[in-house]
């Protein structure tokens, strides 16, 4: 699949596969002004190493972003990281020993899967529905693990506009999750890259706010609200956890890019960061709407998809006889790409008839054309399948062997660890 993904980067391909925010809307004059100011006033400092935890000025910007979602963290609890991805890596490195259990949503952020694998965690995934993670299933999973004498190191969750499913954890479930975490002493790693990218509906409290930061480690990033090229994210955790994370970060890269931190501080000093986020919301809202309209027009009746209130992605599910990894090979012949659903499951098997579609990185015309092309190849496969199984033929699956199982155990998927036979 990595080979397929590489082809998605060809210029002639309309790629709905990436997770790219649109950086073309950031005003170049503003960028030039801020960088010039840094060059003139603090060149030596901006080109120097910085503290491992990050600059106080960066933490002040982070506090503003978190305050916009109702949080009020102690700057002492924040470490600035090289993107949100490093925050996932550092918290896993700090807490997970080989063989430990990590719980994640099903499907989960595809970029988190290789992190958990590389620290040899056993990833157990718990089902979601349109209201996000099913807390009842989470409780069952905790019971089952406890019966086996196993205590998960943490739950990794993207509660708002989840990547890849596009669903949001409801307010009621957020409260239940925080209560459950407290009751079972379960650490929750809340990854919230998209919280401020809400296009409709009422903002919901973060888990970090509801919990007060006792059982919730919070991960944030400037990637989706400003620029992923800056590689600037952060992690908020109680001091004992934070100390281990800081040690890990020291070993990994000493400190986050000083220059990037100076840039963010200058940008925030102009006081217009919310305006910029609002402009992104307007842009992405239109793109999401274009994608939803196109899906309704071009995807077959059997297909379903999430209708996210924010974020960058939606999750479409096709009839269960279509394998989206194979479909991607066909789609690439028509120069259009998406992420096959299997990438979001640690076992690489579940989710085979689903796909993640990104609506932030392409303009509306590209989105319409891209969805039209995917719709055409899906329809081709539906027609082909129907031609092979049509009425009157003896090959109807119902009459013979049972229909292929719709991915057994979709709620809990144990991950084989690297090095195990068959792994």
């Amino acid at each position, binding site marked *: 699949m990595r080979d397929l993904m590489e*082809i998605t980067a060809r210029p002639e391909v309309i790629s709905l596969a990436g997770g790219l925010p649109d950086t073309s809307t950031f005003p170049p004059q503003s960028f030039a002004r801020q960088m010039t100011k840094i060059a003139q006033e603090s060149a030596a400092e901006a080109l120097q190493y910085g503290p491992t935890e990050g600059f106080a000025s960066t933490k002040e910007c982070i506090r503003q972003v978190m305050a916009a979602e109702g949080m009020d963290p102690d700057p002492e609890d924040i470490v600035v990281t090289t993107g949100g991805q490093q925050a996932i890596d550092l918290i896993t490195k700090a807490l997970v020993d080989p063989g430990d259990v990590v719980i994640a949503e099903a499907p989960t952020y595809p970029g988190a899967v290789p992190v958990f694998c590389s620290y040899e965690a056993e990833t157990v995934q718990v089902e979601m529905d349109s209201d996000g993670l099913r807390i009842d299933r989470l409780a069952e999973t905790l019971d089952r693990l406890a019966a086996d004498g196993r205590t998960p190191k943490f739950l990794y969750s993207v509660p708002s506009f989840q990547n890849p499913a596009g669903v949001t954890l409801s307010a009621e479930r957020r409260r239940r999750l925080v209560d459950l975490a407290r009751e079972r002493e379960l650490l929750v790693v809340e990854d919230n890259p998209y919280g401020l990218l809400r296009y409709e509906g009422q903002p919901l409290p973060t888990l970090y706010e509801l919990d007060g930061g006792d059982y919730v480690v919070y991960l944030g990033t400037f990637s989706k609200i400003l620029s992923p090229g800056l590689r600037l994210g952060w992690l908020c955790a109680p001091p004992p956890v934070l100390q281990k994370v800081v040690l890990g970060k020291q070993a990994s890269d000493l400190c986050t890019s000083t220059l990037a931190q100076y840039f963010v501080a200058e940008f925030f000093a102009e006081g217009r960061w919310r305006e910029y986020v609002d402009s992104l919301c307007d842009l992405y809202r239109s793109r999401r709407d274009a994608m939803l309209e196109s899906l309704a027009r071009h995807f077959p009746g059997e297909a379903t998809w999430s209708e996210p209130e924010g974020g960058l992605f939606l999750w479409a599910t096709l009839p269960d006889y279509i394998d989206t990894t194979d479909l991607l090979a066909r789609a690439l012949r028509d120069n259009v790409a998406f992420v096959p659903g299997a990438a979001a499951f640690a076992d690489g098997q579940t989710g085979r008839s689903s796909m993640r579609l990104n609506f932030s990185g392409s303009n509306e015309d590209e989105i319409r054309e891209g969805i039209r092309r995917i719709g055409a190849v899906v329809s081709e496969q539906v027609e082909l399948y129907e031609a092979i199984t049509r009425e009157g033929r003896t090959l109807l699956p119902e009459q013979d062997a049972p229909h292929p199982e719709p991915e057994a155990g979709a709620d809990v998927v144990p991950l084989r660890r690297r090095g195990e036979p068959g792994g």
Partner: protein
Amino acid sequence: MKVAVLKGGRSLERQVSLRSGARVEDALSSLGHEVVALDAGNDLVRRLKAERPDVAFIALHGADGEDGTVQELLEILAVPYTGPGVSACRSATDKSAAKQELREAEVATPDWVSFSQTAFSELGAADALDEIEARLGYPLVVKPARGGSALGVRFAANRAAVPQAVVSAFSYDDRVVLERHVEGRELSVSILDGEALPVVEIRPRDEDRYSYEARYEIGRTDFICPADLSATEEAVRDASVRTWRALGCHGFARVDLILGRSGPEVLEVNAVPGLTDTSLFPMAAEAAGIGFEELCGRLLDLATGRLRAR
């Protein structure tokens, strides 16, 4: 000599090709050749004309590089190239064409049927599935006619699994092959200039059998070279060499077979075998005492020798 190493390209096997190409470049540089690496894109012909290499080393896998397309362009430009010629590449790439040629040459290959997509969509080929089932039995192997590295290859254990497997295979090509599954040992015979190198046996550790991922990841499959075949070795080598001749191969090629109860049966021929550090051809060459540099050197000699022979 000035050698153009052709690699990459647009095929689904691009990554593997880049790895093969990089390794070939290193080997040829060590041999003292002037190496020009060309990632096959729409400027390929222009760059070949500008560089004017003495010979082209084709390290492209899959569409364009292995199916005769690039070979045809190199013929027009009068640049000698490694590996089989245009028509052998074309036959080897299309599994149904290759199997037809093997049958005519009386080389054993598992029974099969092959259909285009229109056969299903326009001509009701599905109504022939009863007959196909009766002839081939289960499990069936369903694969795209063209394409390598096990992409789109499915086992259909019963009727219910056939439609999905066929739809998946059509994702990669507009023609599919439904083949009788032969239970047996998986073997691969590398052939250099018409001579069979030591046989490699492939033993997947994975219950998914021979998946694309497993094929290129160290530790997911065991390879035994030379394979312990005792009395059957001669038959395996003979089937492989006769396959090479039937398709009219040149330079090198790799023949994949299954050793079932009724002897070896040929599954497919790779006209441009992988040359990565986990690939089977270099492994077999190594077992024959031919190091990677020497192998690359031999392939260049065979390429330039072919030109002189014309």
